[in-house]
């Protein structure tokens, strides 16, 4: 049974049709990368999976259960299992680093604060921010904030992690650090959906790669094939353009 299964999802921002008839299923432990030009619907797809974008039609199953997006308790269940790291980090500016990571586990999941605190410190240490626990987001660089956001998502102990272009604001040295922590998670068997423009990384870690354009999924293929002999012409155009730039 797939962990996530979506069938014929259509979603709109006002009148803009951002997701067109999306079908995708993701098994446990799989790492699925989403690639495609800007505005192709990759981020919208991730937002839909955590209920920030409510689909107009289609069905989504999580661990075999149909998700009713209009039902708050269904949404809560979805968000307990799926954590997202946003492109813009979306940290709480009025809380320090440690509080940002700890607030949801303690106040929402009602876990033991001491235990959460220890986990948060371990996670922040892992992403190299042990000396920034008391700093506020506006005192940190983009890369540091991004790593806080990753720690915040992981501290929820999610089953599935969504990463939305998490390396786009980082300098090359930090990209490696962040990608290393993702690799570690991948080796631990966490299910992940990754939106990324780091093609070599995508090629390396993904189980499957999804190419999207103008709100539709054009092609789903394994990483080797999608870069070397894609089935669709549009995929080939995109991939060859991207690889040429590198």
């Amino acid at each position, binding site marked *: 049974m797939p962990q996530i299964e979506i069938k014929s999802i259509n979603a709109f921002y006002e009148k803009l049709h951002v997701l067109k008839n999306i079908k995708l299923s993701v098994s446990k432990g799989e790492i699925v990368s989403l690639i495609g030009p800007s505005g192709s619907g990759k981020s919208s797809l991730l937002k839909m999976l955590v209920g920030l974008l409510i689909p107009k039609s289609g069905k989504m199953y999580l661990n075999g259960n149909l998700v009713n997006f209009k039902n708050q308790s269904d949404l809560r269940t979805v968000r307990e299992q799926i954590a997202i790291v946003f492109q813009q980090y*979306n940290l709480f500016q009025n809380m320090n680093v440690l509080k940002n990571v700890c607030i949801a586990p303690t106040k929402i999941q009602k876990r033991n604060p001491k235990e959460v605190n220890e986990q948060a410190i371990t996670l922040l240490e892992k992403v190299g921010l042990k000396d920034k626990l008391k700093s506020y987001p506006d005192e940190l660089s983009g890369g540091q904030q991004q790593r806080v956001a990753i720690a915040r998502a992981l501290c929820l102990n999610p089953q599935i992690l969504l990463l939305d272009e998490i390396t786009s604001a980082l300098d090359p040295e930090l990209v490696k650090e962040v990608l290393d922590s993702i690799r570690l998670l991948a080796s631990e068997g966490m299910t992940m959906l990754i939106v990324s423009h780091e093609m070599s990384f995508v090629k390396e870690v993904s189980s499957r790669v999804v190419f999207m354009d103008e709100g539709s999924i054009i092609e789903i293929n394994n990483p080797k094939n999608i870069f070397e002999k894609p089935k669709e012409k549009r995929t080939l155009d995109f991939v060859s353009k991207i690889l040429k730039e590198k």
Partner: protein
Amino acid sequence: MGYTLVYTQVLEFLPYLIKGAWISLQIAILAFFGGMFFGLILATIRTFGNNISNKIVICYVTFFTNTPQLVQIYFLFFALPEFGILLSPYIAVLLGMTLNAAAYLCEIQRAGFLSIRQNELDAAKTLNFSLVQQVKYVILPHIMRVLFPPLSNHYIIMTLGTSMAAIFGVEELTGRAFNINSETFRSVEIFSITALIYIVITFIATFLLAVIGRYFFKAKIRIIQ
């Protein structure tokens, strides 16, 4: 100069003046909180309301921020009796200042609403915050931090603005200074002491507000200017 400063006579009136200052403070506080409440309603309508209700609020705000406060109170005090509504000077001043404050405080609070960051709310939602938790942990701390400095400033301006009440015969600080002046003609002494009392009041308020703002809301305010 043939004028010698004699403070002894005026100092006898100090308790009388300080009681007046208390009345000034009452007007300022009541009008401020009344204005906050009314302004919050206006700001809510302005942010979430429909086209027509928006325009009504815009008209209200434009009128009250573009006419002198004195004229507004004059209207309440002298024009309303023509319509059969008779207000005491104290009530007329209080009402006038509240209506005026509502217009300014509406704009300040609206700026607070607009400064809420959607991406923080998105994060809060995906972390399963309920609406109440979003308000408690994300919206209020942020709004208070942003709004505290301009609100404090407006409160200070309003405290000084209460001196207008003297014109209508309210016996607050300035009104009482007028009274003593017409009794003793020690104008320089009286008004210098009055000014000093105003400075003390506003200084205490500024200090308290800065301390509250810094330690409760993490607002960036300097305690000593």
